[in-house]
């Protein structure tokens, strides 16, 4: 018989990373060419456009600035956090249930390829969901102040936002035991929007709620986007009348570190439990639920 020598294969991980990049691109293409997904991408920007239109004439309390102009960058920040956090957690829960993860596990270095693919996927689809925010942005375009520095800052906030939310979203997704629980996660995130100063200035809230909001990435990403897109004078409506860039980087950095520490541990723990029978069990459950 022929020799079968187990060799250390140096480029196997590299090949898996490249395959993962291809996976990400394939999935993004699938998403952006699917009518169902496109409706979903466009739905919220259109809702936001309507909301901003209704806000016409309202001003940020205590100032003469248009409220809508403050809300739009806040939505940009919120969308980054949503894309990273909820996107990562829910796809993970769904793809664990349907056996995608098990396939990755049965393939050499398949988990590396899977994760690289997901990062490409979340990054590009979140980016796309930001681009379509041009629709609501159009309604407040005269009140925004966009220049070269804004784009640079927005780019930095996007990267920081993804690093702060994708790992923690992955960690949360590893804890979910069924795709139905992603609804809870979505609900929790939506509740967090209220104290995060997205649709109304955080300074108008009671102090304790301000502290709740400031514990999570939604507030800080909104703040960062406001600092990039609004005239400097609007800093007056912020806590401490400052954009607090240092604090933003610190809090988002903490989330990133927590996520990067927890995600591999929880992901590995979850993946270890995956097997043909665990997927079959969930399939049974899913079928008997009649969904």
């Amino acid at each position, binding site marked *: *018989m022929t020799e*079968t020598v187990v060799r250390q294969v140096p480029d196997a991980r590299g090949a898996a990373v490249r*395959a993962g990049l291809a996976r990400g691109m394939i999935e993004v293409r699938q998403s952006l060419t699917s009518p169902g997904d496109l409706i979903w991408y466009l739905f919220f920007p259109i809702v936001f456009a309507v909301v901003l239109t209704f806000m016409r004439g309202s001003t940020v309390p205590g100032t003469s600035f248009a409220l809508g102009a403050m809300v739009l960058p806040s939505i940009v920040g919120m969308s980054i956090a949503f894309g990273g956090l909820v996107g990562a957690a829910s796809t993970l829960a769904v793809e664990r249930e349907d056996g995608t993860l098990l396939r990755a596990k049965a393939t*050499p*270095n398949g988990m590396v390829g899977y994760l690289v693919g997901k990062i490409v996927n979340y990054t590009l689809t979140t980016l796309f969901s930001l681009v379509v925010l041009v629709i609501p942005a159009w309604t407040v375009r005269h009140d925004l102040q966009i220049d070269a520095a804004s784009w640079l800052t927005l780019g930095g906030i996007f990267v920081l936002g993804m690093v702060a939310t994708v790992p923690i979203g992955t960690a949360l997704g590893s804890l979910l035991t069924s795709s139905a629980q992603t609804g809870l996660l979505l609900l929790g995130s939506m509740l967090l929007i209220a104290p995060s100063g997205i649709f109304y200035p955080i300074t108008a809230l009671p102090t304790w709620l301000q502290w709740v909001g400031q514990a999570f990435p939604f507030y800080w990403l909104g703040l960062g986007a406001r600092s990039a897109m609004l005239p400097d004078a609007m800093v007056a409506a912020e806590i401490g009348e400052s954009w607090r860039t240092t604090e933003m980087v610190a809090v988002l950095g903490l989330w990133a570190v927590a996520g990067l520490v927890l995600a591999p541990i929880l992901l590995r723990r979850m993946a270890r439990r995956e*097997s043909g*029978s665990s997927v079959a069990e969930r399939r049974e459950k899913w079928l008997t639920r009649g969904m």
Partner: protein
Amino acid sequence: MDGSMSSPRRDVVIDVRDLRMRYGTKDVLTGVSFTARRGDVVALLGPNGAGKTTTIEILEGFRMRSAGEVSVLGVDPAHGDEAWRARLGVVLQSWRDHVRWRVRELLVYLGRFYAPYSTPEQRRPWDVDELLEIVGLTEHADQRIKSLSGGQRRRLDVAIGIVGRPELVFLDEPTAGFDPHARREFHELIHRLADFESSTILITTHDLAEAERVADRILVLADGSIVADGSVDELARQMATPAEVRWTQDGQRHVHPVPSGDATSFVRDLLATDGGTVSELQVKGASLEDTYMALVRRVESGQPAHSSRTGQDGVPATMQEVRS
């Protein structure tokens, strides 16, 4: 592992000794032992809940065992690395995964992971067009996976399982939901894998006719241990599963069970004494189904199945069953 090993153990692909598995206080496997060699097609049979899936998942490295020694391709699956994984093929029952992917797209994607593990002796991965041809999905190559029928989807599962040209393939209930045609084609595929690719194949199935057709060896797992291990013929002899002789005499249909191996002498006696009245004579060898049923019945009634060597205790007394 280096290339200098040349002992007979070299050909042993699966070596399981006294494998035990306990969930909480429940013993699922109470001492499973068997081996499989290169090119073997082994069918693992057993009632639901006997521990087949647990056994396979331990061998696949997806489940940690409680005790016992397990070696798969020379490696303990509990410590199998990615290079080891590249030599295995696991055929999973797909459900909703990758539904948006196109058939060829997914096979090309998965194949990429195996390319670094290609060796001059074992080219990896499989050429996707050739693979599609083998599993009969050529015309569906550019279709989205969600648009495949159940049988097509299972053939894709097989293609995914073998895309890396594995030396060992695990097939858990591979033909559930196949129509007879797809099933026949699938059996040919298994023969091809075993004969031309020298792959070792471990298959679990509830279809005994299928096991009989594809497997060189049958393992029966019942009550947490292997209660039978051998070819279909060996098992029939071990269990003394009767062959069946059928004939018509005086307008009556006769069915007579005869111990395996004794059918020839029975027929000789029958024809020597019938005075030319016997017609429509048929001899049907012991089927795996009969053997399997006898085995399982024996285990369930609490008798040790291993002791069935003499070949007499399972045989009904000579009797003539007359059916109209």
